[in-house]
């Protein structure tokens, strides 16, 4: 690393099923303006922009960053567009961080967005391909069989998913930006909701949201020169990928996620994640992925993730609070969902998470995954500068 980097500004939109009040440009500008204000900066202070979103087919615009250049304050500056499937929000933040860590730029604005109401993600992900049987039914249809495999392998009771869903929806009530704001969602109501992609119930699935997230990432020098007193220092970033399908590929506990996490903990000087990480924002679009990723990330042994969930250890106040913001289960602007995890982790160690703040959070994990559980992006941020 040439220099340390830190998050100095976090901004996000109010996420809703349809943000009919704004265009795509207006949507992401809402997040950008908030991030710049949070960092006490203007566009003039920004050296480069890195933008990410999921497939262009979602909005029907090819490389929308081209038309969005003015809204991003990008003219005259370098702009990169990242696309790594569902992990993109995380990968985008990592690319932005690397521009600072490499010593190339001092302050980088990074943005991720999705305006899902422009089309229909189920359609975009299920366009029939010739010669192939159209049995896929969107992301839920893709992931449900792997959830079933997890349940079989771990011996988890079948109500674990509902615990996660109820917890995240209750957490969302503490987050004014969250899409789903339903005080009546309880463990019982989740259990009673329809089986959509059996074994995944309706209330165990993420919503489809319009939303955006933006971060400002600055170098150690730039942080020192700024008035920011509580930056979120980046302690480590990792990305790993593997094929969608391969003979004997583990789709429940993917190798790429395990390897990324191991490298991340090493980079951040962490030997026991559950003891040293104060809270985690993990990409959980279907409730069961909380216990699955707890294991994949090394917070629990294989087969033990669900026990943490069942014991309430992933609730705020538990041993490893997960998705204090309400997570992807409460807001899912797909392309932005990963960056929201990264940004919420930053907010926690900045002490700016408001009602969903974990007391005394000093180190937090931001995590995203995409494709067929094959692309992983993650970072550790801390209230203190990394010491190793």
């Amino acid at each position, binding site marked *: 690393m040439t220099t340390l980097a830190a998050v100095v500004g976090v901004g996000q939109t109010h996420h809703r099923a349809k943000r009919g009040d704004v265009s795509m440009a207006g949507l992401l500008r809402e997040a950008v303006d908030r991030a710049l204000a949070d960092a006490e900066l203007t566009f003039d202070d920004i050296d480069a922009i890195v933008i990410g979103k999921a497939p262009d087919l979602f909005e029907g615009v090819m490389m929308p960053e081209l038309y969005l250049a003015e809204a991003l304050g990008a003219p005259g500056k370098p702009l990169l567009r990242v696309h790594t499937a569902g992990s993109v929000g995380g990968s985008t933040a990592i*690319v932005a961080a690397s521009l600072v860590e490499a010593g190339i730029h001092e302050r980088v604005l990074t943005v991720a967005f999705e305006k899902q109401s422009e089309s229909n993600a189920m359609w975009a992900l299920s366009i029939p391909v010739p010669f192939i049987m159209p049995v896929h039914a969107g992301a839920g249809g893709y992931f449900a069989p792997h959830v079933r495999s997890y349940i079989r392998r771990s011996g988890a009771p079948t109500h674990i998913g509902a615990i996660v869903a109820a917890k995240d929806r209750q957490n969302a009530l503490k987050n004014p930006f969250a899409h789903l704001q339903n005080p009546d969602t309880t463990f019982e109501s989740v259990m009673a909701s329809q089986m959509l992609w059996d074994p995944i119930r309706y209330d165990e699935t993420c919503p489809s949201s319009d939303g955006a997230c933006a971060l400002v990432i600055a170098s150690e020098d730039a942080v020192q020169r700024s008035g920011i007193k509580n930056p979120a220092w980046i302690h480590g970033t990792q990305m790993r990928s593997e094929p969608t399908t391969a003979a004997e590929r583990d789709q429940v506990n993917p190798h790429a996620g395990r390897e990324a996490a191991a490298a991340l903990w090493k980079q951040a000087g962490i030997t026991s994640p559950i003891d040293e990480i104060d809270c985690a924002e993990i990409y959980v679009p279907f409730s069961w992925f909380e216990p699955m990723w707890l294991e994949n990330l090394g917070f629990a042994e294989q087969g033990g993730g669900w026990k943490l969930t069942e014991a309430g250890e992933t609730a705020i106040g538990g041993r490893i609070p997960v998705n204090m913001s309400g997570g992807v289960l409460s807001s899912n602007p797909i392309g932005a969902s990963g960056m929201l995890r990264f940004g919420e982790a930053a907010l926690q160690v900045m002490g700016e998470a408001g009602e969903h703040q974990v007391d005394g959070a000093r180190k937090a994990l931001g995590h995203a995954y995409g494709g067929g559980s094959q692309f992983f992006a993650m970072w550790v941020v801390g209230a203190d500068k990394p010491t190793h």
Partner: protein
Amino acid sequence: MRDVAIVGFAQRQMKEFDGSPTCVELLVPIFAELFEQTGWTKSDIDFWCSGSSDYLAGRAFSFVSAVDAIGALPPVMESHVEMDAAWALYEAWVKIQTGLVDTALVYGFGKSSAGQLRRVMSLQMDPYTVTPLWADAVSVAGLQARAGLEGGAWDEEQMAAVVARSMSDATGNEHAIRSRTTTVEDVLAQPMYADPLRRWDCAPVSDGAAAIVISAADTPAFDRFPGQSAWITGFEHRIEPGALNSRDLTVSTSTAAAGAAAGVDGVDLAELHAPFSHQELILGSALGLGDDVRINPSGGALTANPMFTAGLNRIGEAARQVWSGGSQRALAHATSGPALQQNLVMTMEARS
């Protein structure tokens, strides 16, 4: 900055690739060729990065299957940009600069012939006020060409000279898909197509894939590398506004700014990514290239323009010239977006 060199380049181009839109079949032999050039294996590559477009392929996540060509188990550190792979190379170069990785293999691919390319490209315009008119890529370039012709920035003969030189030079490039020894007079004798553009003023629809390997100097893998290196001396890119009416289309301020930041002094050769003949003229003046700079010895994008790869190809072609001693200090350029909206400049040199 760490010293980073281009150490491998392989490419495939054709009018119509008879294979899958993921182009995996093209990437497999390209990767094999790169391992032969470098003497390395998959495990010597620390970072993989690619550039491609879902809309070119007509499906979401088109880049996902391309990962198969890597053979990505055990998993790899990997990323993707929805841009020409020249920008993927930039991301990889940045990653090397952070010190997290030492080597990278960057690839791009695209099957333009799968759809109607110029119509697909109209989805790059403003989605509210321009795309509903399906303003296609050739038309937008034509508006730019006429603005320069009638504004006195260039003339028809200059455009024809670009075409004649490119097509003639392409006769020496086995990868070119349009080549012919021709003259300015021959070009001007061709009928108008999208007035003021003749067909030869427009890059041919091209399919293809390409890949480049870069390495930091201070690494064990580089110590084992037997071949020539092209050392990266400058690497910059800039974007301009999206609204066409917010730009003077006859100049390229983003190319000029990227060139100034990268440092173009002393280059003796330039590979410019100009899918339309007049765009080479715009780029040449934006970069201030003198008559002594050899432009596009490969024939350039006018003779093969595989989308999302053609910019990376310019870098590879410039590197080949540096490797062979054809250039001491070369410039490579890539473009993206309507009418040269976004531009990237890399400079490189030979070292003894």
